[in-house]
């Protein structure tokens, strides 16, 4: 009667929650538990982890017993996940090295490509415009401590010997 995928959403959810609870429990078990009169640093985490496992279990069991069909996962925006999350991680890795302007340019370009409406014609000016606007706003106007152009883009960084021998 029901599509296995539709039923499985809460089942998956319950199992994931139980796994998360188990993970928390595993990393909290070394902490001193104390007693309810004098609670140790492990008291709260351990109790909460156990509750989380129990709630996850309840969700999974309820899902198994459910006869009616629920909503489905739908399709997953893999391209969006990859590009958007990738762009943010890239910003974290490269901002201090490349500087705000180049890093932001790359981030916007990559993120824009996540859309099915992505066109070079719109993405490129958007990336240039945002990089310029944010550099002006955050570095020039607000004076935030971020490099505009980072050390990775200086010759000195890659060929320090060359620049000093030229003196």
């Amino acid at each position, binding site marked *: 009667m029901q599509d296995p995928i539709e039923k499985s*959403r809460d089942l998956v*959810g319950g199992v*994931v*929650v139980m796994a998360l609870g188990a993970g*928390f429990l595993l*990393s*909290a078990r070394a902490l*001193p538990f104390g*007693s*309810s*009169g*004098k*609670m*140790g*640093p492990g*008291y*709260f*985490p351990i109790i*909460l982890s156990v*509750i*989380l496992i129990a*709630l*996850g279990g*309840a*969700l999974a069991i309820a899902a198994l017993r459910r006869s009616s069909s*629920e*909503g489905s*996962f*739908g*399709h*997953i*925006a893999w391209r*969006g*996940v990859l590009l*958007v*999350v990738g*762009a*943010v*991680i890239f*910003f*974290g*890795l490269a*901002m201090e090295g490349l500087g*705000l302007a180049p890093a*932001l340019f790359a*981030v916007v370009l990559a*993120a*824009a490509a*996540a*859309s*099915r*409406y992505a066109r070079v014609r*719109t993405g490129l000016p*958007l990336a240039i415009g*945002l990089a310029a606007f*944010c550099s002006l706003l*955050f570095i020039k106007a607000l*004076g*935030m401590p*971020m490099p505009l152009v980072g050390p990775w883009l200086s010759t000195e960084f890659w060929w320090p010997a060359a620049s000093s021998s030229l003196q």
Partner: protein
Amino acid sequence: MELFSDLALGVSTALSPFNLLYCFIGVLLGTAIGVLPGLGPVATIAMLLPLTFGLDPVSALIMLAGIYYGAQYGGSTTAILINLPGESSSVVTAIDGYQMAKKGRAGAALATAALGSFFAGTVATILLALAAPPLAAVALKFGPTEYFSLMVLGLVASVALASGSLLKAFIMIVLGLLLGLVGTDIESGAQRFTFDTPELMDGMNFVALSMGVFGLGEILRNLEHEQTRSVMVKRVSGLMLSKEEFKRIIGPVLRGTTIGSVLGILPGGGAMLSSFAAYALEKKSSPNKAEFGQGAIEGVAAPEAANNAGAQTSFIPMLTLGIPSNSVMALMIGAMIIQGITPGPNVITDEPTLFWGMIVSMWIGNLMLVLLNLPLIGLWVRMLTIPYHLLFPAIIAFCCIGAYSVNNSTFDVFIMATFGLIGYGLIKLDFEPAPLLLGFILGPMLEENLRRAMLLSRGDPTVFVTHPISLVMLLVAVIMLAVIVLPSIRAKREEAFSE
């Protein structure tokens, strides 16, 4: 009447052309940074602090205060328009505000936020003028025992935020509580869930987490549905409130203002609780219950009023006790010290121009915010008609900068990316993220106060019921839990019978 002469002094101080100008600069700047995702008032005030060295102390503090409540104001704009709460207080506004925006009612939501905030700000300012010192004395009655019971009440209220399954809401709260425990245990100094990472020792950053779960998660969800629509909102109807909508928000605004004014006085996290306490109350008592979570205008009005009232009354502990209730207040105290003013109970008597000038300027600042923001609504709403494939890369760019700027740390950018993925996962598994964030905020406070109360009572748990304030709050929490849980249990039972 002494009050009138004091107020007259305040009015003449606040209305001096210079102070009007600085007040305006403050609220303008505050609105601007509030609207930019992630860039909070703390970073801005810190950067502007050196500029205030040369100013008259009153002007300096008027401007800094303006930035603070201006930012509260601007923060709800992004929460409503793009589901991106920059601060804990606007998490709740995002729930129904964003749904309204999606239905083309962003204008009405923004107008509700503006009007509700203005009304709440006015009431809270009057309260500040009339009764600041006695209210501060009440705040001191709150020890760890009372705070613990307040947090329990808050936790119960946060269950009401979810509109779907109760079980799933509980799961999200518990998960949020656990995430909130990441970092150094305050009592023993032990490291919990930090995996020897120094960046995790002070816990995860709320802004990074919330921008990930809400902001990035929502973008990924929208990318899924791209084939059906290229613009977020196809049709924008009416920028202002209809008569009927106006009637609907009066009650919620009044109740929100009351809750916010009361909780804002408590320096230990009261202002933070006020917006969702107000939301929970409306959701349970409103005749339009069913609309909550789908774009109920009451769901915007109540928390916005509470949040703004709380922002104003949270000045009470700072001005009357010299104790900062959040990091913005700590910066303002720093500004006072640099200016040669000793913050403390004597500020009212020693620096009457400062005290009364600031209070009157707060009301003027709130008025300026309404006048500034109502015309801007048209502009904001038009932003939603920008094709989404151009809008979301810009949101991501601002989120990256915002996450970085909180602690000037790339680590927070990675946290945001991680929670973007988690947020999308939650959407896919049909979990609602709002209770998670509230658990995250409440978790550390709940544990801290429970353990501190037990330490101070030397292990005697009866303190929670022998302290009258604590007892009352626990009773309210129990009643509230019953109101929330019983209907769904009854529904389940009926379901079982019908089968």
